[in-house]
């Protein structure tokens, strides 16, 4: 009798709000984060929304296999990355000539005619360690701004490679470019990003002091 009373008096079951069985909660907990990433990658709000929705549906289908090895967010983020890769593959859009030509002089002004660095404008030393830098919100804002300065297709190529971690054959197939074009675009994207970070993050004395 006592046992029954205590059972009846115990707190209501919490299974509804916890556990894996509540995908609707994902929308509130991770929706904005997934949307921000998708928007960074595809730029169009309606496409980004679709990608988030597809991600959540795919998550419902595969939730049984998700054993909680990683956090829920990084699991969902991983699914979104796959959806982004699918998106670019389905788009199958050719790369505009202007984007292939981006930074085609490869900063020749930084080199002397013999091909060595003009020592006045060679790479400066980045004084702060990556671990320190990555803790700063302002750093990520600067990094984002530098990415935004790349032409869309160059940014796509760079992010498919470095964020979705696709390899050369996959990207070449999705974007219909040759390996040498891809590597040239990656080279120029990295060169432009390096320059942008050096000027806008590492070069600013105030920022450096604050670290």
């Amino acid at each position, binding site marked *: 009798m006592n046992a029954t009373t205590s059972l009846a008096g115990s707190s209501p079951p919490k299974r509804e709000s916890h556990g894996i069985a509540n*995908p*609707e909660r*994902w*929308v*509130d907990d991770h*929706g*904005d*984060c997934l*949307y*921000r*990433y998708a*928007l*960074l990658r595809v730029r169009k*709000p309606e496409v980004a*929304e679709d990608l*988030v*929705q597809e991600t*959540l*549906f795919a998550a*419902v289908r595969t939730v049984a296999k998700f054993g909680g090895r990683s956090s829920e967010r*990084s699991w969902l*983020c991983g699914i979104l*990355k796959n959806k982004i890769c699918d998106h670019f593959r389905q788009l199958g859009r050719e790369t505009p000539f202007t984007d292939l030509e981006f930074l085609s002089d*490869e900063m020749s002004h930084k*080199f*002397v*005619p*013999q*091909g*060595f*660095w*003009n*020592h*006045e404008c*060679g*790479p*400066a*030393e*980045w004084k702060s360690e*990556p671990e320190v*830098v*990555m803790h700063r*919100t302002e750093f*990520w*804002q600067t*990094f*984002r701004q530098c990415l935004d300065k790349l032409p869309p297709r160059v940014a796509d190529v*760079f*992010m498919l490679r*470095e*964020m979705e*971690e696709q390899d*050369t054959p996959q990207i070449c197939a999705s974007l219909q470019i040759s390996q040498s074009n891809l*590597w040239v675009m*990656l*080279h120029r994207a*990295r*060169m432009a990003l*390096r320059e942008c*970070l050096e000027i806008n993050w590492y070069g600013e004395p105030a920022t450096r002091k604050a670290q």
Partner: protein
Amino acid sequence: MTEEFNPSPKGNPSLLKRRSKLETSVVKFIGRHTPKCREVVKILSDSLEQPLPLSMRFKLRVHYMICAWCQRYEKQLHQIRRFAGKLPEHIDQCSREQLPEDAKQRMKESLRKHRQP
């Protein structure tokens, strides 16, 4: 040939910096027999896509003896790769856009239907 050579700057951070005639000739020798900096930067980017042959890795090591700038460039490319790889985790720090409320409701609705066929 000599006058058109890139002069060593003040406070040259490289290991070898033409402080004597002998050092100068070593620097020039290395400069002639390793890739030029303009080529090095492309080679370094490509090395993130495919490992370089041993001989090229050796040439770069030797080149770095006369060129601290290319060595920095290599280090910074690796840092950029790390930063980009970590960006998705830090997306909340670099953008504030929100999934519109109506889209959220719509998604919840379809997830509910999806779950109870």
